[in-house]
């Protein structure tokens, strides 16, 4: 068989669908709500859109570890410390699942990661905000993860198979993330006046940025139409945002926090909550790199990567030496290590 890499890229590098049969097959799969798999012919623009979206999603998980990682060492109870550590660890896992999905499209992880730490690749703007108080751990879980879940649940049915499968695993694991955030806020709202204030101020900080996570209004989101036609995206930005607000209002009532929007009110006619105009100028600013922590987020990841270079190189060198020696390691490496001295 010919060079597999060449084959993998052939679909979008060459005009390899001269008779249009690839396109017809692709259209048919999309129309019947089937899934596109890595080895299928796909339009170059579909592939490009997916690589961009999935790698941005992966980058967001990885950068998103930082605002919460900020509080692991200071979590105010050991139970909260354990939960937070498990959650941030999950985010690393989710980043890895997503990089794997993107890699099936022919862009390797080292390249995607390189793009992230050199500032070429994007990630969700929300993670450029900072976490000055513990209550932000609650708001991130309740609002940011809540918005992310709204976005992600429909992505489990995304037309690209590996993306949908990664999202299924992620959604399953994330079900605790939003709840633990809600419970952090609930505990604070039941607590001292200082704790209640901490919670309210944090919700004030995160509410609008969380709503903006769904992206610009539909009218200003030209790419959305194509993504919906390709069944990567299943609902428009505004539809998802509305769904999210409708869910938040009763939850905020249970918490006893006020959502910082004077225009928020039930619209009997629409059967939805109306809400105020969001400050898209701020969104654009943060997106353009002028958020509270853009440079810090990227440089922190870059530093970790650079500091780890000698470790990765050592492991690679060891593997190369082992295979050069013709030594085949014990195949059953999943056996429990035998420490004979312990068998007293």
């Amino acid at each position, binding site marked *: 068989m010919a060079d597999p890499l060449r084959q993998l890229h052939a679909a979008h590098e060459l005009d390899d669908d001269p008779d249009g049969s690839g396109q017809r097959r692709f259209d048919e799969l999309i129309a019947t709500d089937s899934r596109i798999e890595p080895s299928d012919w796909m339009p170059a623009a579909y592939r490009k859109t997916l690589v961009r979206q999935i790698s941005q999603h992966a980058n967001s998980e990885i950068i998103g570890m930082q605002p919460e990682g900020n509080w692991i060492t200071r979590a105010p109870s050991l139970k909260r410390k354990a939960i937070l550590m498990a959650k941030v660890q999950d985010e690393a896992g989710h980043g890895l699942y997503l990089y*794997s999905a993107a890699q099936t499209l022919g862009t*390797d992880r080292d390249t995607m990661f390189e793009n992230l730490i050199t500032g070429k690749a994007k990630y969700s703007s929300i993670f450029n905000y900072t976490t000055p108080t513990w209550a932000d751990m609650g708001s991130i879980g309740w609002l940011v993860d809540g918005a992310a879940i709204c976005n992600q649940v429909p992505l489990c049915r995304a037309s690209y198979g590996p993306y949908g499968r990664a999202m299924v695993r992620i959604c399953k694991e994330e079900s605790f993330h939003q709840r633990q955030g809600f419970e952090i806020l609930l505990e604070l709202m039941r607590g001292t006046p200082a704790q209640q204030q901490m919670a309210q101020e944090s919700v004030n900080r995160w509410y609008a940025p969380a709503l903006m996570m769904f992206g610009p209004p539909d009218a200003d989101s030209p790419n959305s139409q194509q993504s919906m036609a390709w069944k990567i995206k299943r609902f428009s930005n505004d539809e998802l945002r509305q769904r999210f607000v409708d869910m938040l209002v009763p939850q905020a009532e249970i918490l006893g926090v006020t959502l910082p929007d004077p225009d928020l009110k039930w619209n009997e006619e629409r059967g939805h909550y109306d809400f105020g105009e969001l400050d898209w100028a701020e969104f654009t600013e943060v997106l353009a790199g002028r958020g509270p922590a853009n440079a810090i987020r990227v440089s922190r990841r870059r530093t970790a990567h650079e500091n780890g270079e000698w470790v990765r190189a050592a492991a*690679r060198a060891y593997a190369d030496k082992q295979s050069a020696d013709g030594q085949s390691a014990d195949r059953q490496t999943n056996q429990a290590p035998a420490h004979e001295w312990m068998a007293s």
Partner: protein
Amino acid sequence: MTSPGDSGEREQWPLWEVFIRSSRGLSHVHAGSLHAPDETMAVRNARDLYTRRAEGVSIWVVRASAITASDPDAKGAFFESPQGKEYRHATYYTESDTVPHL
């Protein structure tokens, strides 16, 4: 054709495909992939990454580059033949539907 996503030697650590047996009596099922410098570390990374919630009792890893796949361009030739051979399935035999223990 190797595993989709294999990047050959371009990456510092190669790509591995991970298969998990979720409980005794079941087959190993593809769970996803990861990067690791060698097979020993790949199994460990798989344990840490794919069994954090007790999802498995056994793990296989295989280098993505070691997987041979059917040719995507030969789908028709590969998978057409079973079509039309419904007699390989029990449901084809309707006369015996009502006979017990058949």
